[in-house]
């Protein structure tokens, strides 16, 4: 009972945040809504017993990525969105398409709703176990993703640096 209640609580928070992201016109509001979503999701993960994942969710996603987003929004001084007409296709094809997809999936789920219940904390994912998996079974993907992150860092620095900055960096030695 409590399980269901907590699930609904966090779930509602997620959905509310997501919808708010869509509705808000200023990107900073959208960013903050997204933080709410991330936090609620962390709660959901805990309900499922994924402690490590929940922790990472808060630290990395909400704590680093979203902060990065907020920094960029403030850096670029993004204002409210203008209303430009843009693309008819997106509205005429994309939204109906998405709706169709959603409806299909929902229908499918309702059809096969005889799914077993998931207990609270069904699968405890403590750091030790996950660490073991990570460094034994999934070592290669782990190393590859670390290289990926390195490349991302280099790319980000290269892309974002201003032409003048390099010269001045050189000047300063």
């Amino acid at each position, binding site marked *: 009972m409590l399980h269901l209640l907590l699930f609904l609580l966090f779930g509602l928070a997620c959905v509310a945040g997501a919808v708010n992201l869509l509705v808000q016109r200023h990107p900073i509001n959208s960013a903050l809504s997204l933080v709410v979503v991330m936090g609620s999701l962390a709660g959901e993960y805990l309900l499922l017993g994924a402690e490590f994942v929940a922790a990472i969710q808060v630290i990395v996603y909400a704590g680093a990525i979203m902060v990065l987003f907020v920094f960029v929004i403030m850096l670029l001084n993004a204002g409210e969105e203008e209303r430009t007409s*843009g*693309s*008819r*296709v*997106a*509205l*005429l*094809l*994309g*939204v*109906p*398409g*998405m709706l*169709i*997809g959603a409806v*299909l*999936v929902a229908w*499918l789920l309702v059809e096969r709703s005889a799914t077993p219940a998931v207990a609270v904390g069904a699968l405890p994912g403590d750091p030790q176990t996950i660490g073991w998996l990570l460094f034994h079974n999934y070592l290669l993907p782990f190393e590859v993703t670390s290289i990926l992150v390195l490349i991302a860092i280099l790319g980000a620095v290269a892309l974002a640096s201003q032409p003048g900055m390099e010269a001045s960096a050189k000047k300063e030695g």
Partner: protein
Amino acid sequence: MTPNLHLWLIPVLPLVGAAINGLCGKRFTRTLVCSVGLTASAAAFVLGLWVATQPMVSGFYRESLAAWIRAGDFRVDFGFYLDPLSLVMLLIVTGVGFLIHIYSVGYMWEEGGFYRFFSYLNLFLFFMLTLVLASNYLVMFIGWEGVGLASYLLIGFWFTRDQAASAGKKAFIANRVGDFAFLIALFLLIKHFGSLDFASLFSSIGALRPETQGAGLLTSIALLLMVGACGKSAQIPLYVWLPDAMEGPTPVSALIHAATMVTAGIYMIARSHVIFDRAPTAGTMVAILGTLTAFFAASIGITQTDIKKVLAYSTISQLGYMFLACGAAAYTAGIFHLMTHAFFKGLLFLAAGSVMHALGGEQDMRNMGGLRKKIPGTFWTMTAGTFAISGIPPLAGFFSKDEILWQAYASPRGSWVYWLLGLITAFMTSFYMFRLWFLTFFGEYRGDRPEAHAQPAPGSGGHAHDGHGHIHDSPKVMLIPMMILAVLSVVGGWVSYHHTFENFLAPVFRDAGPTLAAEAHPPSGEAPAEEGGGETLLMVISVAAAAAGFYLAWLLYQRRPELPKQIARRIEGLYQTVLHKYYVDELYATLFVKPLVDGSTKLLWHGIDQNVIDAGVDASADRARQLSDTMRHMQSGNVRSYAGWVAFGAAGVIAYMVWIGIK
């Protein structure tokens, strides 16, 4: 057992000569070119003579080089065949051909494309010899088509001249019409007799009875063969190419359009005598056609002013005589006349060329005259030729023409109508030939060629005599062949003494099976060779006709030269019609040429090629462009529309998966 005669060498040696001259001749000197050409044709002649001396056991000789077609039961070989008929043709072709090769060295010496000329001449020899020595209809057809090709190449030798190129095309196309009929005849032969080989074919046909009641298979085949021969031998209605063929150099006219190629049709009919003997309707058609052509062409020859055109119509007329002979089943007479005609007509053309050479290219007889003293060599040889063709005894033409007229009258398939028309034609022949003789060599010189300088008529075969402007006789290299032919024209007829020639050829035409003639007479398709009163009487009458022609020509062109114009004015309409060759060319142009050209332009070119095919291709290109024009709006550069497409596609994939999952 007859030893291997290697007959195939005879056609192949000229082919080799043609190849050498054709491929490398451009870099040779003129001497080398004519050495190659003359050697090739001389070798063919010498081989022909040698072959003639070899004994033939069974009266004929066959050799087969290689298998060509093996299709079920139908077999055709590359084979060669020698019997008295093909031997006679072989000697005529190589002998006269060789003489004309020698003549051409002198005549064409200053022309461009010297090597090309000799290459084509040798090529012609190759094809003609293939035709004559073939052992089956298909190899004969190779030669048949090939001589048509060589004729086209040589008529249009000066191809930069429009008339020459058109004349070449006309010859080829008219021949083609005949070839079409020939081919259908071959198809019929294959279908019903399963073979084209002379030996086997003629023995199967020989067992059949003659078709006396109307038309049957053999009559159809014979009639189709006749149409084929009409095309090649310039009979009505396919003769129109021969006068135009005079655009070619004169040696070409002599060799191809007098002595050899045009006789191919006669040879083919003689070779197919087994068929014609059993299809009397077709034989009669051949005789009628030949007589009409002879009469018709002779009438046109009377009015022509171009020396070569007179000779051209004369050739058509004489070929008509040969057709008549073959139609009346007097094959030996036809071949005899073929031989003598090769001598004197070849000579006449060579002499005409010599006259033109002396006058710097002049061909119009109205501008000639009084050349007797100036070019004596040409004069005397041409005299021999003229007397021979007019049938004055004891020259060659008398014997052969007389034989034909006698056979036309007395042979079981002959009739007095043929004889009468043939007689009138002989009178006309004599008249126009002596008219030519008088106009060219007698009287006052009417040309505008002063002795000092010369303006050659463009492209007509003469060449400028820069430096020596006076009218002079031809060089020895041209005169000697003419003299040899003149001698042959005089003595050539004497081979009929005691029926020697006839007996020589008789075994070829002796038929083992049932023929009309054999049923009615002792085995010989020809009239009984009686030296009776009838033949002598007719002989006297024909000599009288020839003499009358001579007298009339002398009267009109030597004694009272103002008469021809008055006569022409009196019968203006008739004269104009005959002068314009009875407007046959115009008739063909309206009936056949114009509709074809118009139809081709309007229907095929504009209608189909432009409006359907081109339009279709263009339209499909247009559609592709329009389609891509529409599709390119997808790439708008707008990220959101891309996103829209992605979402749509993803929905599609999800739907598909759901559908799979449900199944």
